[in-house]
C-alpha cells in the first residue's frame, strides 16, 4: 500500500513538472509566434513601401524628364516599324 502511494506521489510530481515545462514551452512558442507575425507584417509593409518607391522611380513623368534630358524624342508611327503577325490569324495586322 505504501509502495503504491509512493509511486503515485512520484507520478504526480512528474506530471506536475511536465505541466510546468509544457506551460513554459507554450508561452515561449506563443512569444515566438507573436514576434514572427509582427515581423511578417512589418516585412509586408516594407515590401509595399519599396514597391511604391519603385513605382515612384518609374513614373512616366520621371522617365519623360530623363529621356528629354538625354535628348531622346517620343516615338511616333513614322519612326515605328510595324511587324505583321503572320502566325495568328485575326491577330494584330
Amino acid at each position, binding site marked *: 500500500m505504501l509502495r503504491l502511494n509512493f509511486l503515485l506521489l512520484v507520478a504526480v510530481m512528474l506530471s506536475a513538472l511536465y505541466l510546468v515545462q509544457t506551460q513554459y514551452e507554450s508561452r515561449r512558442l506563443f512569444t515566438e509566434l507573436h514576434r514572427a507575425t509582427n515581423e511578417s507584417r512589418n516585412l509586408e509593409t516594407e515590401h509595399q513601401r519599396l514597391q511604391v518607391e519603385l*513605382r515612384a522611380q518609374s513614373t512616366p513623368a520621371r522617365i519623360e524628364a530623363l529621356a528629354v534630358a538625354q535628348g531622346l524624342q517620343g516615338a511616333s508611327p*513614322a*519612326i515605328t516599324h510595324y511587324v505583321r503577325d503572320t502566325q495568328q490569324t485575326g491577330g494584330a495586322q
Partner: protein
Amino acid sequence: MRRGLNYTSSPLLASKTPAWRSKFVMACVVFAFTGLAGRAAWVQVIDNDFFLRQGEVRFARTLELSANRGRILDRNGLILASSVPAASIWAIPEDVEKNTPEELSKLPQLAKLMEMPLDQLKKKLEEDKSFVWVKRQLDWDVGQQIKALGIKGVYQSREYKRQYPEGEAAAHIVGFTNVEDKGQEGMELAFEKDLAGKIGSRRVIKDRMGRVVEGVGEDIPPIDGRDIQLSIDSKIQFFAYQKLKEQVIAHKALGGTVVVMDAKTGELLALANYPSFNPSNRKRLTGEQLRNRAITDVFEPGSTIKPITVGIALENGKVRPGTQIDTSPGRINVTGSTISDTKNYGMLTVEGVIQKSSNVGTTKISQQLTAKEMWETFSAVGFGQKPQIAFPGAASGRLRPYKTWRPVEQATMSYGYGLSASLLQMTRSYTVFSNGGNVIPATMLKLDKPPVGVPVFSERTAEQVRKMLALATGPGGTGQRAQTVGYSVGGKSGTARKQVGKNYAAGKYRAWFTGMAPIENPRLIVAVMVDEPSNGTYYGGAVAAPVFSTVVQQSLRLLGVPPDMAVQPQIVANPVEESL
C-alpha cells in the same frame, strides 16, 4: 556555586496545569486556521472576480492589430495609391528637459529633421498639456533618425500615410485621404468601404518588462482593405495631363480637362484636369485645383452635339447624308430670334453641315424632328441623366422636359445651347457612334468583359455619322488640327460662349473637341475642353483639337494599335561607316 535544583525536581512542575488551558489554546489555533482557510477559499474560489480583474488589469493588454488600407491600381496593376508606414512624433512637454544644454542642443536637429521652424517646435514643447502631436506622418526613415537622437519626452508612434506616385497627373481621379487614412476625394472616397481595412485585436499577457508572454482569449485577425483596380492607364493618363497642361498654359486659359475612353467598353483610360494639385502636399489647396471638371462641371456643349442631332434625323429617315440643305444667307429666323453662321455656306449636304459646323443647317434639320424625338435620344445617350459612375459629385447636367421646349429652344438645343452636360457625359454620348449605334455606360473600374450596350441608332446611322466626323477633321473641316500621323480620326469641334449669370459673356469661350479614332473601327473616344482660352484664338478646332491629336496618337501607339493610314517612314537605320 552549584545549581541547587534539577529540572525534573523543579517545584514549579509539581503544580498541575489545568487541562482546559491546553484545550483553549488548541481551539484558538484551530479557529485561526479555519478562518484563514475560509478566507483563502473565499478569495480564491468563491469571490475571485475582483482579484482576477485586478490581475488582468496589471498584466493583460489588448493589442490593436492594424489593417492595411487597400491600394488603388491602374489597369496594368501599377500603383496609383498605396499606404506606407509613417512616423508621427508626439511629446509630453513636461518631460522634455529644457534646462540641460545637452538636451537643448538636440532640438535644432529635431526641428531640421521635421522641416519645422525651431521657434514653432519650442512653442509646442512649452504647451501646458500632457500630450501634444509635434508632427504627424513623417517619412519612416526620418522617424528612425529622430528616434536615434533619443530626446527625452519625445516619442513616436506608427501611422500610415498614403503615397501617390503619379502625383498631380492622376490627382483628381485617385483623390486623397486625410490624416486618419480616411478617403476624402475621388476614388479614395468613392471606394472608402472597400479600401478601408478592419483592425483586429489580440488579448495578451505582458510581463513586467512589457514583453508578450501569453495570449488569452480569442484573436480577432485584422482584415486588410481590398485593392481597387481602375480602368485608368497611367501612361495615357500622364500623357493626356501633360499635353493638356501645355495647351492650357500656352493659351492662357483658366483650365482644361481631357477624357480618354475605350470606345468599345466605356472604360475611362484617362481623365485629367488642369489646374491640378499634388495629393501628397495639399497645403494652400484651392477649390479651383481640386475640382474634377470633367465630372462635376456642366457646360453647354455647343457644336459637339450636332452629330447627335444629325444622327436622330438620319435614324428617323428625315434626311440622308447627301440631302441638300440651303443655309443661305447664313441666317435663319426662328419665331423672332435669329440664328446665324459665321459665314454664308450656301447649299450644303448633311455631311457638309457637320463638316462646316453650320448652325443654320442643323437648325433646319432639327425643324424636321419633333421635340419628343430629340429629347428621347438626348436622354438615351445620357444627357440630363446622372452618370452611373462610382465617383463622388458626378453631375447630371440639364435637359428640360420636351413639353416645355419652345421652337427656338428646340433649334438652339440642336446645336448645343440651352442644355448642359459634363465632359464625361459628352464623351459617353459618342459611344453611340463608336459602338455600332449602342450607347454603353462609362466606368472607372477595369471590366472583365465588355458591357451590354443600349441600342439608340442603327449600325448604318453610326457609320454614316462617323464618316461625317471624319470629314470634319479632313480638308475643309473645322477640326483639321485633330489629324494625326498614321491614324484616321473623326470628331467635332465646338466653341461655346460662356454663360455668366443669365447672359452670355462677351469674349469668354469654351473650346471643345470630341472625337474618335481610328474612325473605321474606333478604339478610343477622346474629349477635350479648354476653359476661356485668352490668347487670341479660342475656337475648339484651334485650341482643343491639337490636344486631341497628340493624345490620340500617343494613346493608340501605347495600346499597340497599328496605324490604319499609310505613313511615310522616317526610320533612320544605324549609319554605316564608310570603308576607307
